[in-house]
C-alpha cells in the first residue's frame, strides 16, 4: 500500500517544475510572437545549460559528500587563461594546454579536499579561501584577456549537431559519466555514504577522506572543463569570465533547486540538470520578453526560494520518524494525521 501511495520524489518534483516552466515558457514565447522550439531557440537554451551545467555537476558531487565549493568561478577563470596562454594560437599546443589546465584544476581540488577532510575546515570557508587565493593570483598576473585558442579548439564551440551544440553534448557526456560514477562505482556509493553519515561510512570500513577529496577534485576538474569550453567560445582566456557568470552561487542554487540536500547524502545529477535547465529556460524566456535586467535578478531570486520551498518542508517533515517510529502502522497513522 505504501509503495502505491508513494509521493513524488524531489527529483520528480523538479522535473515537473521544469516541464511546467517549459510549457509556460513556450506560451510566453509564443505571446511574444516567437517559437520556443525553433532550432535557434533550442540552441540558445541548450547553450545556456552547458557551462552552468558542467559546474553544477561538480557542485552536486561536492554537496552530496557534505561539502561546498565556492572556488569554482576562479578555477574557471584560471583554467581559461592558463590554457589560452599555453595554446598561444598554436593547434599543436591544444593537448598539452588542456592537460595542464585539468592538472592545475585537479591540484586545486586536491587542496580543497585535503583542507576539508584533514584540517576539518568547513567546505564553505575552505573554498571561499581558495577562491580568494586564486582571485589574488589572477588579479596580479592577468590584466585583461590573455592568450589565444587556435581555430581547431574554437571549433568545439562552433560545432553543432542538428540544433544541439557540441558543448551541450560534452556537458551531457560529463553528466553521464558522473551518473555512472555515482551509481556504478564504489566511489560514488561511498560519496553518498559519507555525505549521509560519516559515522556509518566509517563503521562500514570506508576511509571517509577519500570520497571528500575525490569529489573536490572532480568538481574542480569539471569547472576546468567549463573554463576550457568558455575559452573555446571566447577564443581568448579571460581572468574574470568565471566571476562574470556568478557560477559559485548559481551552481549551488541549481543543485539545491534540483533536490539535492544541502547537508549532503541525498540527491542526484538528473535533478541538478533539471535545476540548471529551469534557470536556462527562465533566462531564455526573460530574454525573449526583454525583461529589465534588474528585474531578472528579482525573478531569479524569487524562483530559487519558491522552488526550493515547494519540497524543502516536505522532505524534512518526512525525515524524523525514520528510526524511532515503532511500526509501519503508526507511521501511517502519523502521516494521515
Amino acid at each position, binding site marked *: 500500500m505504501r509503495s502505491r501511495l508513494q509521493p513524488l520524489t524531489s527529483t520528480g518534483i523538479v522535473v515537473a517544475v521544469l516541464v511546467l516552466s517549459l510549457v509556460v515558457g513556450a506560451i510566453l514565447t509564443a505571446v511574444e510572437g516567437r517559437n520556443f522550439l525553433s532550432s535557434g531557440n533550442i540552441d540558445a537554451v541548450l547553450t545556456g545549460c552547458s557551462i552552468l551545467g558542467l559546474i553544477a555537476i561538480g557542485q552536486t558531487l561536492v554537496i552530496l559528500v557534505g561539502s561546498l565549493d565556492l572556488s569554482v568561478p576562479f578555477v574557471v577563470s584560471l583554467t581559461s587563461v592558463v590554457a589560452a596562454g599555453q595554446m598561444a594560437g598554436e593547434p599543436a599546443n591544444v593537448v598539452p594546454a588542456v592537460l595542464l589546465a585539468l592538472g592545475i584544476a585537479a591540484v586545486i581540488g586536491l587542496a580543497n579536499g585535503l583542507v576539508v577532510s584533514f584540517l576539518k575546515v568547513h567546505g564553505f570557508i575552505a573554498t571561499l579561501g581558495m577562491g580568494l587565493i586564486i582571485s589574488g593570483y589572477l588579479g596580479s598576473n592577468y590584466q585583461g584577456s590573455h592568450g589565444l585558442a587556435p581555430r581547431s579548439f574554437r571549433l568545439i564551440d562552433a560545432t553543432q549537431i542538428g540544433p544541439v551544440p557540441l558543448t551541450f553534448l560534452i556537458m551531457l*557526456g560529463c553528466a553521464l559519466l558522473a551518473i555512472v560514477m555515482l551509481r556504478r562505482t564504489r566511489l560514488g556509493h561511498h560519496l553518498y555514504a559519507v555525505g549521509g553519515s560519516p559515522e556509518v561510512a566509517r563503521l562500514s570500513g570506508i576511509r571517509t577522506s577519500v570520497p571528500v577529496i575525490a569529489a573536490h577534485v572532480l568538481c574542480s576538474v569539471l569547472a576546468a572543463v567549463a573554463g576550457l569550453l568558455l575559452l573555446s567560445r571566447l577564443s581568448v582566456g579571460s581572468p574574470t569570465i568565471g566571476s562574470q557568470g556568478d557560477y559559485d552561487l548559481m551552481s549551488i542554487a541549481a543543485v539545491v533547486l534540483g533536490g539535492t540536500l544541502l547537508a549532503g547524502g541525498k540527491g542526484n545529477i538528473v535533478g541538478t540538470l533539471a535545476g540548471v535547465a529551469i534557470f536556462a529556460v527562465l533566462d531564455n524566456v526573460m530574454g525573449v520578453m526583454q525583461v529589465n535586467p534588474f528585474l531578472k535578478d528579482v525573478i531569479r531570486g524569487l524562483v530559487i526560494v519558491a522552488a526550493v520551498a515547494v519540497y524543502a518542508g516536505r522532505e524534512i517533515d518526512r525525515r524524523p520518524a525514520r528510526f524511532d517510529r515503532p511500526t509501519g502502522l503508526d507511521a501511517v497513522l502519523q502521516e494521515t494525521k
Partner: protein
Amino acid sequence: MRKSPLLRGAVVSAAALLVLAACSTDDSVDDPAPDAGADPETSESADAPADSSADTEWFVQADFDEQDAQRSATFEGDEATPWLQYIDGPMTDTKKYATQEAQKVCFANASISNPWRQTGWITMNQQLKALQDSNVIGEMETRDAQDDDNTQIADIDYFITEGNCDVFIISPNSTAAMTPAVERACETGKPVIVFDRGVNTDCYTSFIHPIGGYAWGIDTANFLSDNLEEGDKVVALRILPGVDVLETRWAAAEKIFKDNGIDAVDYFTGADPSKIKQIISDELVKGDVKGVWMDAGDGAVAAIEAFEDAGVDLPVMTGEDEMSFLRKWEETGLTGLAPVYSNFQWRTTLLAVEKIVKGEAIPTEWVLPQTPITEDERADFLEENDGMPDGHYAKFGGEDLPGYPQVWQDRKIP
C-alpha cells in the same frame, strides 16, 4: 584491494576529455558548422598584432600618437550636435541598405550596471522614440548580457538565428572575446554597428566611439603634470582591470606621469566609494598626496571627502563629467578637470542606423569628439543639468530629445 578513487577520478576526467576530443575532431571534419565563422584566424592575425598569445599589452605607441593627434583634429559636422560629428576618414557605403521600411534593430548590450551606461541607455531609448515616430525604426529588441561575455555571445547568436534583425547594434562586453560573435553577425550581411568598447575586427559597418582612452589619459595626465611639481604623488583610482577603454586611459596617463617625474600609484576600486576613501585615507597617512587621477567619475566625491576628513589641502584632481563630481568640484573649488567619455555615443548609434536606412555613407570608424570640461565651462554645464541626479552625465547630449529633462531626472530604466 581498493583502487585509489583519486586515480579513478583522473580516469573519469580523462575519459571526459576523450569524449570531448573525439567529438570535436569528428564533427569538424565531416560536419563543418554552419556558423563556424569565416576564418577568424586570418582576420585576427591580420589586423590585431597585439592580440597574440602574449599578455595583453595595453600601451601601443601608434594608437597613443593617433589619439593624441585626434584631440586637436577638426571634426566634420555641426558643433551644436557633437553626437553627429566625426573625424574625416574612410566611409562605409550603405546604399545597399537603403529602404523605406521601418527597421528592426537588435541591440546586444553588455550591461546597464553603471551610471554611465544607465544614462546612455536612457538617452538611447529617447532617441529610439524619436526615430520610431519618424518611422525609421519599427522595433528595437534588446538583450542585456549583465556583464557576462558568455551571455553576450549567446545573445548575438540568438539575434542571428531568431531575431529577424535588420540592423545589429553591439556594445561589446569585452574586446577579444566578442570578436568572433561580431564576425558572425557581420556574415549575415546586415549592417552591424559596434560602439563603446571595440572588437578585433573591422567587419562592422561602423564602429562608433569617442576619441578614446589614450586621449583621456593624455588630457588628464597633462593637466595634472601641469599643475603639479616633479616628484609629487598622484593616486590613480581605477575601476577594474581588463576593459580596453579603461586600460588605455591609464596606459597613456602612466606614461606621461613617468615622463614628467610624477610619482603615481594605482589602485583598483570597483568604483566602490568606501574603498576609494579608505585607499586615499591610508595614502594620506603615508604621506602627502598632491593629485588624484580617476578613470571614471563615480566615486570622485568619496576621494575628495577623504582629503576633507583628513584635514589636508585638496588635491589637483581629474574626474569625469558625472554630475556628482561637477557639483563637488564647484563646491570645493579645487583645481580640477572633468574629462569626458562622450555619453552621447549611445544616441549616435541609432542615428547611424537612420543614416544607413537612408543610404547615406557613414564613417567606418566614427570618432566622436571628446572634449574635457574645464573649470571655465563648469558653471554652464551645472546650470544646464540642474535637477539631474548625481549619476547623470553632463555631456549626455539629449537636450533636443523628447522627454527632456523629465525622463533623465526621473531616471526610470526602460
